[in-house]
């Protein structure tokens, strides 16, 4: 079954892990061959992140065994795992922003000299080692710059260099591409290829299937906490992979587009914030899905925040339904039935230690208040309606939201806004970090909401989804709108061109 030419560097046998109410990993076994780029794919809640966290020491497994490079790993801490040669590049990077690049690369393990006063750091040598690592990556990063000055892609490369400086034998990349642009992704792939040449094994987690065909040697599919299949990428195709992931065949991921625009809902007039947004003008109509494309840093998120009244606007304004007065602040925006689905669900969307129901009723809490007291029965009834209609997978309405998978948390955040009948919803990267099945559901929801007459603004880095469901696309670059295109007629190249003008 498996080729004998390679030896496994990682042998995982019968791993189980449970959280309250969730059996996150169910008897998972797999083999990862030395020197391979091994992709792990699966829907949200499939157990990928849990598995990775167990391998890297962040979680303790309930039972089962992991053999790494011939040695059985006990319940090690993340620090022990790094010492053994397992390094993880997390989605949320763990760099000290205020320190220069070279100090970050050798953070915690700088080159030291012995002297009379004990060990002292040899900064020159430390810098040299870091410089060599960066140079070997063949990328232009100044090792003396502070990390905070780098963009996300470069930070990720610094993180990889950090892993290499610890003589990593296995580098785990947890959705490294989620925040990267196409160009930056190419650089990352070149680095992964270099690692492979040096005999370093990579575990690559991603939701973007195209990437797996481009970079991986072998792929493992997980579903519902179970190992489904591991095989050579060359023996797989996209359709097969998706059907393994969702357990059924998926025909067309985007629902049919129906354009039936209503009255003007939102008007943005000469909106400017110095250095951030520059003279933004556009309209949004009822039942319209307006896509906003652009690279990371083009001002898309800032635009969303400005529309929602989060950040102070310098000049111009946001007007709803022909109002003469602009939106003043968040409360005003919410009262006028506007909603924002923020890009960072964990940091900006959910209250982790409140229940699913309490998260859903957070904005519309007045609806569950009777005679000035919260009525738990009403709260249960109303939130359970949304759990049902949005198909939120949770054992009960008062389960803490932090135990839900990302896609389900996302749906709770949406439920929070539907709870107050928002009719203009801004989605900032609604499908970031969620899998094909959940994505398809989000697309279906977006289309459904538009059909009900709601106005939708969708910001996304994924051109395919912007082109797949928007009725109209605005492209941003450098805080300006550089063009408007018709998704039926445009091409990815045209959008990329406008995004880099």
């Amino acid at each position: 079954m498996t080729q004998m030419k390679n030896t496994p560097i990682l042998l995982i046998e019968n791993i189980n892990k449970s959280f309250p109410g969730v059996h996150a990993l169910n008897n998972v076994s797999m083999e990862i061959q030395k020197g391979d780029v091994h992709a792990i794919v699966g829907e949200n809640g499939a157990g990928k992140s849990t598995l990775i966290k167990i391998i890297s020491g962040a979680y303790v497994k309930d039972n089962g065994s992991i053999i790494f490079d011939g040695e059985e790993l006990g319940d090690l801490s993340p620090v022990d795992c790094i010492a053994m040669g397992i390094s993880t590049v997390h989605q949320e990077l763990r760099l000290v922003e205020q320190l220069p690049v070279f100090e970050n690369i050798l953070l915690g393990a700088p080159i030291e000299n012995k002297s009379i006063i004990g060990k002292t750091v040899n900064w020159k040598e430390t810098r040299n080692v870091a410089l060599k690592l960066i140079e070997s990556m063949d990328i232009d990063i100044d090792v003396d710059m502070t990390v905070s000055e780098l963009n996300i892609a470069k930070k990720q490369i610094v993180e990889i260099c950090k892993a290499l400086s610890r003589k990593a034998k296995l580098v785990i990349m947890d959705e490294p591409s989620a925040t990267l642009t196409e160009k930056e992704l190419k650089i990352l792939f070149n680095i992964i290829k270099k690692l492979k040449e040096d005999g370093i094994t990579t575990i690559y987690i991603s939701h973007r299937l195209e990437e797996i065909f481009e970079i991986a040697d072998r792929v493992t599919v997980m579903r519902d906490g179970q190992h489904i299949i591991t095989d050579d990428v060359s023996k797989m195709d996209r359709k097969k992979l998706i059907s393994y992931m969702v357990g059924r065949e998926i025909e067309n991921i985007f629902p049919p587009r129906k354009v039936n625009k209503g009255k003007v809902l939102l008007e943005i007039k000469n909106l400017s914030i110095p250095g951030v947004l520059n003279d933004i003008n556009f309209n949004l109509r009822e039942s319209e899905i307006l896509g906003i494309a652009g690279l990371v840093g083009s001002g898309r998120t800032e635009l969303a925040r400005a529309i929602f009244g989060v950040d102070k606007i310098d000049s111009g304004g946001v007007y709803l339904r022909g109002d003469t007065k602009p939106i003043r602040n968040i409360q005003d925006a919410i009262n006028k039935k506007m909603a924002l689905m923020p890009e960072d669900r964990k940091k900006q969307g959910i209250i982790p230690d409140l229940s699913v129901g309490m998260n859903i009723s957070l904005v519309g809490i007045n609806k569950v208040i009777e005679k000035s007291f919260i009525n738990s029965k009403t709260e249960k009834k109303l939130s359970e309606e949304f759990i049902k209609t949005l198909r939120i997978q949770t054992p009960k309405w008062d389960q803490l939201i932090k135990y839900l998978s990302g896609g389900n948390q996302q749906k709770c955040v949406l439920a929070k806004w539907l709870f107050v009948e928002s009719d203009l919803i801004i989605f900032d990267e609604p499908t970031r970090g969620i899998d094909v099945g959940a994505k398809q559901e989000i697309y279906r929801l977006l289309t459904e909401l538009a059909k009900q007459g709601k106005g939708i603004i969708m910001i996304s880095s994924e051109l395919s989804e912007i082109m797949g469901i928007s009725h109209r696309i605005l492209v941003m670059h450098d805080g300006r709108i550089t063009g408007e295109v018709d998704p039926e007629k445009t091409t990815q190249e045209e959008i990329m061109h406008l995004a880099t003008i």
Partner: protein
Amino acid sequence: MAKKSDQNSVSKGGFRRFITKSSQDYAIIYMLLGLFILLSLTANNFLTLNNMINVFRQSAIFGILAAGEFFVIISGMIDLSISSTAALAGIIFAMIIKAGGVALMPVAIVAGLLAGIIVGIINGLLVAKLEIPPFIATLGSFLYVRGIVYLSTGAYPIVSLPKEYNFIGRGFVSGVPFPVIIMAIIYVISIVLSEKKKIGRFFYAIGGNEEAAYLSGISSVKIKTLAYAVCGLMASVAGIILMSRLGSGQPNAAIGYEFEAIIAVVLGGVSFSGGKGKALNVLFGTLFIAMLVNGMTILNINPFAQQVIKGIVFILAIWNDVVRNKVSR
């Protein structure tokens, strides 16, 4: 061999899960029961009606302070100024009684409570509006409020007050100490406020994830200020009871009480990181400390050693909070 290690990790996982689950809601109840049984068996005269009444009476002032601190901590902050606030409220109360006699009692109470609310609002504005870290801002208040107390009294106690006012701190209503009744009322209000009122939900939301709460239209300045105002109000209730119990207006009153209150809150399983914990468990935390101190005194443990033990209990409680946050992540 492999089998054996499997079993080990099973039991370890199981134990961790037990800690995680139980410490969320019930740990303090088990601890309180355990301590109660231990002291009943080892300390003579512990399990008597009189002594039990004593434990409750001793816990009343700390319990009320802890209830106030609870609201600030679930909102993700801390208030170090409550002992000074309690002293201020007590002094104001004593001064008005001294000047106008028992007839002015209602005025004295209202003035004392108002003082606490004002200190609380100032704390809230320092933290929420000026964005000074809560620890530092309330450390400043701890100093200046005590300073005001000393300034206004010249650091002399206010003595020869009418006897009637002692009832608040020393009276009994059908066998139950009056301060215990006030504490019970305060806890009923706290439970309702935290679990059944909108403002309580918003305290948890701000403490659990301020940014998400803000993006849901919850004004963090307003909510944080309210949390401090509630805390200041409760501190002044405790301060008035304390003055009445001491029988005179003591400028040095309540020094160090903020730590007792914070220990009680943390023992009650309220997380220092904000956003979780239950008011009723804070009451149990208070009773645990009161029972521990009472038991140690009956057992004739050196009062200085008692302080060492209290410190260790505090550190253990905090450590439990840290471990819990780690495991549930």
